[in-house]
């Protein structure tokens, strides 16, 4: 029988248990946090007194696997060469070699997330057709549990259902699709706009009321119908929305319209920073922040959540399922560009990008991201993200933490920006500093709640024993970039800041119940439209994958 592990005397910061720095022992057994034994038992004790103990962190929006991520690696050898990662031996195993550009190789991705105390990550945009590729990559990511959101916002079957008002058909299709491809949540990317771009080079959906040619539905209808169906299916994370007009000056109005269209339904808006721009004329300096008005709406609607998509300065790679956006970005940069249209489902765009602090637009994007963290009153409604690698690498999370916890540091950084930014952003007026508990919310407890992961993001009994121990440091960037200890599923992976062992993660999927009477008609539709047989689509042959799949129980069922 597996013995107990006792983490003794740590300063526990667990917002779910409302612990904000009390010394407490944590008992672990069988990969889970358990109640302290009532009688004397054999156990191993690790003394973590004086150190901060939090749940393992969760990155709820990143791009780490799948064809577009891998193509980004393939097309940027100059980045891969810049920071090679060496093979190293552990006491019981090895750390594979790799490369660390803005898009790290797959083993390095796992090791680096571990090194920051992250134990769960979600890839935010996998086309259903690319699910098999994504699962093969996931198999290789060590140490972290993973899952993905699958793109549905331009899916033909789904738009046909919406056009004929067939809500139950849409619900069945969504249930079928999530099961078939092993996805965790549906993702809407530029609803209708990607399809229009595939139809013609100037095509895009600029307005939520614009009709999608050939289908007669609007982005608003897509957003509302998918969100309604996903909530009805009781998905742990109903819907993840990248709304229309990302990155376009004046897009805040589309964003506000999107928030209003959700009309009380539970939903999440991704990388909201990129959707919060005022302005709109050809003049570059017309760009301004519209975070205040959007954050006020979020503050008034607790069912809505956002992740930020913080921009950091330096070289990175833009990658998106938003095909027309990819086209737009490469026209701006003139750099190499990868685009892939995926039949009946989606598109994508990949292009290198560099954010510079002296560039007005880039600096304003940086400021707008921080405004979001500081203007959303309830930290449970905002999750930390850089939209890795779009705004910057996930490796920048400790720097963002310091920017939020240390207003003097923030001011020093602001002073280095293009000065015009402060005329268009209220960042300099914001004095708020995050507490450690609030950081714990936006990096683990909040994402877990938003994702419906009841067994993650906290240190209560029954939670996964995914735990991070930090050495207190007044420089919060230092504190968070080198955890003293990281535990995954009860096994100590990082000790004294070094990786000691690796473990296999699990793949989290939603696996909802749905009306299966429609399966045959869905399969028939598939056969007549796709360029492959439905039996070779997704993970029907789940035994091809070595990694363990874990179905996350729907929210209502777990409450009952």
């Amino acid at each position, binding site marked *: 029988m597996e013995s107990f592990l006792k983490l003794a005397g740590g300063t526990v910061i667990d917002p779910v248990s409302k612990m904000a720095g009390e010394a407490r022992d944590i008992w672990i057994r069988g990969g889970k946090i358990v109640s302290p034994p009532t009688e004397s038992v054999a156990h191993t004790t690790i003394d973590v007194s004086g150190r901060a103990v939090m749940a393992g962190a969760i990155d709820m929006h990143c791009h780490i*696997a799948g064809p577009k991520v891998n193509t980004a690696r393939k097309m940027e050898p100059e980045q*891969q060469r810049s920071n090679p990662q060496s093979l190293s031996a552990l006491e019981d195993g090895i750390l594979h070699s790799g*490369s660390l*550009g803005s898009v790290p190789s797959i083993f390095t991705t796992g090791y680096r997330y571990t090194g920051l105390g992250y134990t769960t990550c979600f890839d935010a945009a996998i086309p259903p*057709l690319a699910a098999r590729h994504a699962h093969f990559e996931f198999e290789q990511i060590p140490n972290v549990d993973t899952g993905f959101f699958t793109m549905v916002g331009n899916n033909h079957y789904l738009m046909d259902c919406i056009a004929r008002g067939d809500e139950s058909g849409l619900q069945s299709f969504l249930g079928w699709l999530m099961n078939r491809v092993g996805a965790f949540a549906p993702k809407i990317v530029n609803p209708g706009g990607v399809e229009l771009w595939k139809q013609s080079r100037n095509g895009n959906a600029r307005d939520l009321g614009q009709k999608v040619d050939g289908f007669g539905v609007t982005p608003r209808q897509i957003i509302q119908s998918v969100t309604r169906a996903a909530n009805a299916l009781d998905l742990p994370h109903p819907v993840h929305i990248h709304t229309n007009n990302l990155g376009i000056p004046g897009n805040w109005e589309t964003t506000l319209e999107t928030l209003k269209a959700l009309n009380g339904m539970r939903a999440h808006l991704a990388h909201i920073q990129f959707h919060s721009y005022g302005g709109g004329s050809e003049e570059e300096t017309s760009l301004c922040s519209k975070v205040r008005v959007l954050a006020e709406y979020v503050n008034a609607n607790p069912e809505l959540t956002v992740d930020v998509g913080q921009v950091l300065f330096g070289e990175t790679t833009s990658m998106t399922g938003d095909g027309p956006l990819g086209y737009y970005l490469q026209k701006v940069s003139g750099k190499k560009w990868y685009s*892939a249209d995926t039949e009946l489902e989606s598109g994508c765009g990949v292009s290198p990008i560099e954010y510079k602090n002296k560039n007005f637009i880039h600096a304003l994007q940086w400021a707008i991201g921080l405004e979001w963290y500081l203007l959303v009153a309830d930290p449970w409604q905002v999750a930390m993200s850089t939209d890795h690698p779009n705004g910057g690498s996930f490796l920048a999370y400790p720097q963002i933490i310091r920017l939020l916890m240390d207003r003097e540091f923030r001011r020093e950084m602001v002073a280095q920006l293009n000065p015009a930014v402060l005329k268009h952003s209220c960042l300099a007026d914001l004095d708020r500093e995050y507490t450690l508990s609030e950081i714990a919310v936006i990096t683990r407890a909040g994402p877990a709640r938003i994702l419906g992961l009841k067994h993650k993001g906290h240190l209560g009994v029954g939670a996964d024993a995914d735990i991070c121990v930090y050495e207190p440091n007044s420089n919060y960037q230092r504190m968070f970039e080198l955890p003293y200890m990281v535990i995954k599923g009860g096994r100590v992976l990082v000790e004294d800041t070094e990786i000691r062992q690796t473990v296999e993660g699990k793949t989290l999927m939603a696996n909802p119940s749905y009306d299966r009477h429609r399966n045959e008609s869905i399969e028939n539709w598939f056969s007549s439209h796709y360029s492959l047989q439905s039996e070779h689509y997704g993970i029907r042959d789940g035994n091809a994958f070595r990694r363990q799949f874990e179905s996350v129980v729907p929210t209502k069922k777990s409450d009952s």
Partner: protein
Amino acid sequence: MQKPEKFVCAGCTLLCDDIEIDPHAANGRPKNTCALGSQYFAQPLSSTQTHFVDGKAATLEQAVQSASQLLRESKSPLICGLDQLSTEAQQASWKIADIARATIDTTFTNRGRASIFSLQKTGKVTATLGEIKSRSDLVIFWFCDPEITHPRLLERINPQDTNRSQRILVVGDQETATTKIANRFIQVSPENAFELLVNVRNQLALLSNKPSSIPAKACVSDIEITANELVKELVCAKYGSIFHQQVTENSRFDPTSDSISQLIRSLNDITRFVGLKLRTDDNALSAENVLTWSSGFPFAVNHNLGHPRQHGLEFSAETMLQTQQCDAILFTSRLSLSELVRRLSGAARAHFQAIPKIAFSTHTIAANVQFQMGIPGINEAGERCRLDNLSLPLKKVESNDWVPPEAILEKIRQNLIAHS
């Protein structure tokens, strides 16, 4: 009535996955295959899996032991021929390369690499086959002959919607099976192919600035006139697609490959266009994917310093053999040894014959250690990548209890770890 099970054909990189095979039927012939597919499924199968050490039958454990020993004794092993393996076995191969500090490459040859260099310079605009089928009103075959190399391609991208027409255009140096069914054939020699592309791009650039004139200046040379004809075709398309193969044998720099990528990219400033390389290199695309997600680089990766390095073709299999930088080789090939040797360049051939060899092969091959593998999609299962980068599972038609290459490779890796 239960639908018949569908199998995937690995006869070419189209991976047609609608093949029906009834193993109990009298003739046992697969349905829905093309000529290549029929040949593929008609390959003779071994009834038993036999491994060899120094030409003598050996147990799997003995062969694993010998292979591991050779790799341990090697100062600079080379692993190649990944294009013949499944995704799973390619992954296992990379893990060996990592721990053995080996060089690893997708194929034996430097040919056909230009498209990746183009991706790294320009990028790529592409689509899946179904997208081309449902949208493409103009399909161009650029120096390729799919009727021979990918016989079911046209069937698979031809629109079923009879209200929509799809124009087929072939650009190449000679009449082929595909030109016979094309709406138009534009003849150009390989030597003039690059010049044609430059002219097309120049005329398109002028067109972008002055949409009403094609071209802005009078055409004077034959190439300019041909280019002008081609431009007229291109700009009329609503969603064009170009299937292409490498025109020249120059592996390091093929200007037409770069130019095709740039052309497709710039056409998206006028209309929608996508491109797809008509690959003929088995499962090399999957191998590039595996090497990329594992090491960061798609091919020719050296791990001698304990981390991945890739500099053009410096560490390709062909270069490593030509320059005698490897002292043992672990490879996969479905060719006979003599045929494989014949395909290597002179200097590479001599070194290949001189060094210890560990082979994964479908049939007996003269090597220090030989592991017998099945034929993918017939008596061996595993993942493969279609030419449009879709991952598809190959199933076994014939059940057997053979140990698949990925399991053997993992045994070798475990042996290396145990003795490191």
